[in-house]
């Protein structure tokens, strides 16, 4: 087992541990911390696979943006008063069977064909050259999508205020 495989194993373990925490806990701050652990694990996996730009973007967009948004929304719809607010969950055998089935299916299909990646170190300017070169259309479409999402959020939130 090389140092790279070891690093990959560690980051994947962090990811799975964070994911398990996100699913199992019913306490708001612990859920957010677990989700943060998972997202940082994803960033670390990108870093190990040789793409620092993806890792930093993951931290920027997810830990700094989406995760704060999740915690913000959770805090907004609850009062942090004397009672400890729980995240409502109904653990259910059928759901567990389905999730296990998905896991077995994915692991059985992908496991044998997907060898562990050898890291390819990518400089950010190469990524920029791709984004503004061959995949320029996709890049511009993402810009349009983000604008649409921004306007959608504004319309949804303002519309809610009127009524």
């Amino acid at each position, binding site marked *: 087992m090389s140092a790279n495989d070891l690093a990959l194993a560690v980051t994947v373990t962090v990811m799975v541990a964070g994911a398990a925490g996100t699913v199992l806990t019913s306490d708001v*701050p612990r859920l957010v911390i677990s989700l943060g652990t998972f997202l940082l694990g994803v960033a670390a996996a990108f870093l190990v696979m040789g793409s620092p*730009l993806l890792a930093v973007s993951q931290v*920027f967009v997810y830990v*700094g943006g989406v995760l704060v948004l999740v915690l*913000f929304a959770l805090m907004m719809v609850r*009062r942090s008063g004397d009672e*400890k607010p729980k995240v409502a969950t109904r653990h259910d055998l059928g759901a567990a069977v389905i999730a296990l089935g998905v896991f077995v299916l994915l692991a059985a299909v992908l496991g044998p064909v997907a060898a562990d990646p050898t890291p390819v170190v990518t400089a*950010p*300017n190469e990524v920029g050259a791709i984004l503004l070169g061959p995949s320029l259309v996709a890049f511009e479409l993402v810009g349009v999508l983000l604008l649409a999402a921004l306007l959608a959020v504004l319309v949804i939130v303002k519309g809610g205020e009127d009524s």
Partner: protein
Amino acid sequence: MTFLWGLLWGLAAVMFIAGGAVIGVWWERKVAARIQMRLGPQQLGPAGVLQMIADVPKLLFKEDIVPDNADKPIFRYAPMAVFAPIAMSVAVIPFWAGWAPLDSTVGMVFYLAFPSIGVLGILLSAWSSHNTLATIGGMRAAAQMVSYEVPRSLAVLSVIVLAGSLQPTEVMDAWQWWWIPLTFVGFVVYFIASIAEMNRGPFDLPEAESELVAGYFSDYSGFRWAIFMMGEYGALISASLFGAAVFLGGYRWLPGVAGLAVFLVLAMVLITAVMWIKWTFPRLRQDQLMTFCWTVLTPLAIVQLVVAGVVALWL
């Protein structure tokens, strides 16, 4: 071995921030006193410099109160999550020609991305206090910090566009003196947005000591409170160093050690200017704060970015 070096650098960064915070408190008291025509600390040592040594044991020996109602483990460690990202962000600041403690190829984004983890620490500490005042203060701080991140990142982006690199040392190599007039608007936006990011006056309404009993950290005392304060001064030091480097040229003005001295003096001037602003301007209202961010700073930063982009085409 790499791990050990990383540990040592981390320790160095924490000591740097902590020491800077202790000096910063003394300096701020002197600056504030001068603005208000007082003398400030003067009993201990010349001009009260020994006051900073007296302050540290005072904070260390204060009782560490954890409210009964609080979510204890998170309440205890959330301050670290506020402080650690700020100490980490110092790592990518270029201090010397071709040298930064962590000379990453994506250093500029790293600098902008990591302090945003601190927002999470603020929200968690506010939530774990189980106190309505703290929760509201935390949400206001988070809203403010997330919003001001936008103009701040856009302002830094204009320098990145001019330099054509995300690596701080390469940005410094590419830096030219005429970038100062060219990116002046960007620098002002960066400066104002940084003040808002570190929750300092006149944008300190999430914590407003006198009115809101310190917002999100109202339940903290003793050394855990001091960690928040250190984080705030750390953000001030880090933002000033970064601004002095990428916007004002840092060490590029003079060769060798003299360049480092110029860089540090520029950063000190920025730190003092932030304190000056804090003790001069009255506090904004929450809606004014948000309106200012989205209708003044963000459009200005976008215009600056367009100008920088057009110039970069002819570069």
